[in-house]
Every structure is written in C-alpha cells, then in structure tokens.
C-alpha cells in the first residue's frame, strides 16, 4: 500500500470468515512465535502488526481481524477497504463456512477486483476425520478464482507460517508490478505536493466556496 524510502512495505491484510472457524486462533498462532506468553496476555487479538523480512525487503503486515457472525456481514466493506490481501478462513468440518468463503470471494472480486491477493485457508485439519468439505472441491475452487489454498491447524501449528509467507510474497510481487506501472503517476503527484504549500495555501479552503 505505501512504501517508505527505507524500503519498508506496509501491507494491510484482512481476515474474513464465519464466526468460530478459528480466524483469531490462526492470527494468534502466527504472532505467538514472535511474542512470549507474557506479552500475549496484554495483546488484543483483533489488530496485530507483524514485521517480516523477505529477500531483504522489510515488510510490515497490519492484520485486521473481523467479526464473523452473519449479522455483521454488512460491515465487511469498511474493514476490507484498502486491503492488500485477504485471508478467507473456513472450517473443514463445516460446509456452511465454505459457502461463506465463496460469498466473500465474490464480494471482494466485485469490490476490489485484482487489487487484492486472496488466500483461502481450510482450518482445523486436526479434525480430518470429521471433514465435510471435500478436498478436491476446495482446491479446484481456489484455483478457479485464482487464490492460493492452504490447509491449516492453528491448534497444531500447521501451515500457518506458510500461509502468511506465501500471501506476503504475492503481495510484494503485486505491489512491485503495480508500482512499475504507476511510476509516472506517483512522480507527478509529488511535484504537485511540492508546489501547493508555497502558494497561498488558503486556496484549498476558498475552493469550497
């Protein structure tokens, strides 16, 4: 989304999925490696920052958890606005939750197009014997919509690290593609910013008259 001259990329990632699929647990599991237990008690697992280093690039992930209950679905847009990535979580033992993921994918594609990197996570693989969402169906769906699919278990710490790493890699890739095409535009924007304050800056106020 924004990149400081020092080379740090800041990305916003939003966690979507039905309630009880384990969004918060995945987030906690991912951050837990970085923080000890003592820190965890003071953490609020709704918004977390994670600093990464991929190929010498410093990356700062701001991860936004969202409320998954159906009645809060309408609030989605204010959360995923300006997101660089979305993690869509479902519970492999709950077919409904996979249906919700499909809804989210549709909505995100419609609202944000290809600006957002999508990753689908089938959580709770420790409950493999209770699986109701067929493996092939999930993976072929992900492929169809151009999202990476991961199987995770927040409980056993499986696949969580890989999921975030892959997501971050893709976001960096997409950011670099976009910034190449936008080089001209951004430099023009900078010139404008340069000039504005030296003029009588009051014009910004009187313009509204």
């Amino acid at each position, binding site marked *: 989304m924004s990149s400081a001259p020092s080379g740090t990329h*800041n990305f916003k990632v939003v966690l979507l999925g039905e309630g009880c699929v384990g969004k918060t647990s995945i987030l906690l599991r991912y951050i837990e490696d970085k923080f000890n237990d003592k820190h965890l008690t003071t953490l609020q697992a709704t918004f977390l920052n994670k600093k990464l280093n991929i190929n010498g690039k410093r990356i700062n992930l701001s991860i936004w958890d969202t409320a998954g209950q159906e009645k809060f679905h309408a609030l989605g847009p204010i959360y995923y606005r300006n997101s660089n990535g979305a993690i869509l979580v479902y519970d492999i033992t709950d077919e409904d939750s996979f249906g919700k993921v499909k809804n989210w994918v549709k909505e995100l594609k419609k609202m944000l197009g290809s600006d957002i990197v999508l990753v689908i996570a089938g959580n709770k693989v420790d409950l493999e014997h209770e699986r109701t969402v067929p493996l092939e169906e999930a993976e072929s769906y992900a492929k169809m919509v151009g999202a990476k699919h991961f199987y995770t278990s927040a409980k056993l710490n499986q696949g969580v690290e890989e999921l975030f790493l892959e997501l971050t890699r893709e976001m960096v890739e997409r950011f670099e593609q976009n910034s190449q095409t936008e080089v001209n535009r951004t430099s023009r924007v900078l010139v404008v910013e340069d000039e504005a304050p030296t003029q009588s800056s009051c014009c910004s106020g009187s313009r509204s008259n």
Partner: protein
Amino acid sequence: MKWFKKLFRGKFVKSTEPKSVKAHNTFRIFTSENKQKKLPEKQIVAEPTTEGVFALTTIRNFRCDSLNEYVFESEWVFVTREKLMEPKFQQHLTKTETLTKLCKKLAERSGHKKQAMVTVRPPTCHCNDLNYAEGGLMKDQYVNPFKKLFHACAGLLKRIYSRIKKYFCKIKDESSVVYEDQNTDISNSYLSAGRVRALRGGRSTRGAGAALRAYALHLAQDKSTTFAQNVDNFIACTLDSKETCPQIMMRNMRQFMSGMKNYLVKHGEREFEKEVEKERLKLKPTEFLNIDAILEGVMHRLVVRPLRSKLYSLLASWHSADVRQLHSAIERAQHATPLQLGIKESTKVPSSAVLAVISKHFLKMQEADSPLDKLENLLAAISVMFNAIRGERTLGADDLLPVLAWTVARCRLVCAELEAELMAGLLPAALLAGEGGYYLTALFSAVAVLKRLAPDSGSDTSTPWRRGSAESAREGCGVAVVRVALPDECRGSIRRVALPCRPGARARDLCRAHAHAAAITNPQDYALFALHDGQETMLNENDCPQEVMSEKSGQNFILAYKRIDAKIAWPQQALLSYP
C-alpha cells in the same frame, strides 16, 4: 563566597599539587549573579581544585537550560585562587561585560577560537574523554599549571570536538533520511508508532519537541509571517464558507494542515530551521525529533480548535437523521441483553464500575479539540474495555464488535458517529492504516450494529431485539411533539423548538435530542427546566416531560432547555403564544 552557587561536581583534573590529584580531582562550576544590576547574564566560575586554578566564563558559553550540559570552548579565563580573590578581579566578576571582554581577549590569544561544544557530564559519568585528558595530563605535572590546564583543555576539547563533529554528521545523515521520509509521505512515521502511547510522541509539553512547538505557535502569533497569514486566511475563509458538507470541510482542513506542515519543514519561516537545528543539538543519541508529530499537534491547535464549533454544527446537521436513529437505537439497546446484541455467553460484559471509567474516556474524547487526542481517548476506552472482559480466552473481533456496541449503548454515546467521522476526516491517512484506524473502524461498525436496532430501520421487525410488550404498546400510540424554549445566549433571544418525542421519554432523552438539534457540544452543562410564572424548576433526568406538561396544562407553563448556570430573566407574558 556565598554568592557562588555550586552547581555540580564533574570529574576533571587537578593541576597544581601532584599529591592531591586524587583527593581534589573535581571540576566544579559556580555561578555568580550580578545582584546589583540584575542583569540576566551570569558569570560562571569553574574551579578545578579548591586551591588551584579557576576557569571563568560567562553564561553565554553555556547552552541549554541546565548548566551541566553544554559549554562553549572559546571564552574562558583561567586564574589562580589568589588572583581571583583580588578586589580588582572580583569587580570583573560583578560586571558581565568586562569579564566577557577579558574572556574574549584571552581566548583570542590562546588560539582556540573554534567553537566546540563540551558536554560536562555529571559526576556519575565516567567518560573516556575525561579519563583520557586526565591520563595525558598526569605525565607532565611539572609544567606550569596554567599551560597544563590549557593544554589539557585544548586536548580534551579537540577530542570532544571531533567526536561531536562526527556525531553530528551521523545525526545529520540520519535525520536527512527522516526528512525524506516526511517529504514523500508526511505522516508515515505514525505507522511505526503502533501502540497508543506512541501517538503521544512529540506532542507532549515537555522534551525536545516543546521548544519547536512553542516556536511554531509563536510564528502563528506573529501576524507578519506567511505562516500566520495563511492560517488566519484559511480559518476566515472556512468560517465564511457556505459549504454544508462536513466531509468537504474536513478534507480541506486536512489538506491545508498537511500543506502547512510541508511548508514549515521544507521552506521554514523566520528562524524555524535554526530552531530545528538547535533542538537537534540537544538530543540524546537515542532520541529523535518527530517533527511531523510535533507539527501535527501544532496544526490541530491552530486550525482544528478555532474551527471546532463550525465543524460540529456542520456534522450535527449533516448527520441529524443518523444521530436521531442512533439515539433511539441506544434507547432500545438499554433493554437488550448482551446475548441479543451478539455477545457470546462466555464473554463477560464490562461492569458498571468499568463503564464509568470508559464513560470518562468517551467524555474526554468528546471534549478534546485535536483528533489525535480524541483517538487516544477512544483507544484508552477500548483498552479499558478489553482488560475488563478479558478472560481465559484471548478475544478476537468476534467479541470486540458486539461488546463495543453494547458499551457505546450503555455509555449513551449518542455522538459516536460524529466523533468517528471527525477523526476519520481529520487524521492523516497513514495513521488510519494502523491500530488507530482499526479501532476507529470498530467504532464505526459498532454504530452500524446499534443503528439496526432503531425503530425506523427496515430490518427492525425481523430482529430479535424488541422491548417489553408494555413499551411497544405505549409506542403504538404515536409520536408526540414537545415544544421547548431555547434561550440563545449569544443573541439574547428565545427560540421555540418542536421536537418529536416518544411518549414516556425521559427528560434526559429530550436533553440529548435538543443538544443535537442545537449542535451543543457540552450537553453536560445543559438541562431541561420547567418554567411556571417566571419560576424555573430543573427537571430530573428521569422525569417525564410529557407527564409534567399534562399535569400543568392550561397554565402559563413551558419547558426550557438552557445552560444550568445561565441566569435568565424570562419575559412575564406571552411565552405560550411565542411562535
């Protein structure tokens, strides 16, 4: 020598008597105040030993407020105790100018004209530089004490000078990176701030930022500066503007504030850049000046504060329907159980004691001028809420949102949406991508969750949140209109306002509705009064104005909403027929 005030003991070298090196290796600094003339200047006397050589200089050579921090090299006079005690020299001490001249003359002669800064460290500091000087001096103790001291000083100063120079070069490099940072993305530095407290960085009244802040505010006071003129023009234009959309007004304000910040950082005005340099010299190696945060605070003070009431009235009229909807939704939510609001059974809700604390933070949020202060108070409120409901389980967004909605309802934060709009409109965009932005979004969504409880929202009938049947029955009998007199203290006139009022509504509901209708930002100072033959009776929060009205119907009786402390002589007659 009572007029000598001992300031500190620093580690230094004693040069006259080799035997007492260890006993007297202190470097003391005295000040003498010129009491007769009351000059602001002071003389400084540094005394290497109790019976050795005195190093004298004027206070001009000291930077910073505390004398033990910075010393200029150039103008020093070294005298022996005997010479110091001479009446002629004592006269020098009482006359600043002559001592200054003397210092200058001697400094010129000594050839150490370069101005270097020396940090004279407190006694606890065992600095390598000072030890080095001490060691170097110990070798040739037979030399003339004067020469030796000069020698020691020169060596020490040269060494420190080079170190300081190196250090400043380093700082310069580092800070130039910071500048670039600000040029490209003026508020990117917020992103790294992270936690609540970090937002405060640079905006506190203490510390290195204070002088810069004070200088920028001083610039705004001086009406001959471009800066001050721009700020004044902008405020005048905005106040005159016929614009009714608060979003546009806030966008202009945001753009103007960012523009003025850029202007000060890139072009400076008067001594602004010098002031920045001066502050940088005072920084500890681990500190940096967050100029962006400092200026953001300054701009809030200069731009947001004077436009506050205009902005609030725009927001209140633009969002009047939203506020009314949220208001009735909050009334309904009072009777909803936590479960009905979507709070899981396993999650505790904040106790009333906690709610009182949260309410205070919310109140502070409403009172604050600066959107950053508002955001800080919002984060503080949420953090109190989180700590109160935290159990065994770590709480995620599934818990946060409904509990926040419940809390907003219980604290009766009717203006939640206005405040959220204001913060979102005025805070720098980069800040909104971080933690602050997340919890601001949470406040927006809590408002959205609550609003669905409002009776006029379409989905209402299908929602499970209904009040008791008695309440619904009473609501069924239609909406009454209550007319209330609003004395306008500014204009000295009385307005009659008719507001829709649910039957059975309490005085506090009506107060709130009026506060919004009249765009009153300090509703806690206002109350409803019953006026009867010129007598005012304040209604209690829980009184039902409609009942009071019906009891007194037919009499010369009206309701008035006014500031509790306002002393008003009401007209004797014709209040009832007042339009």
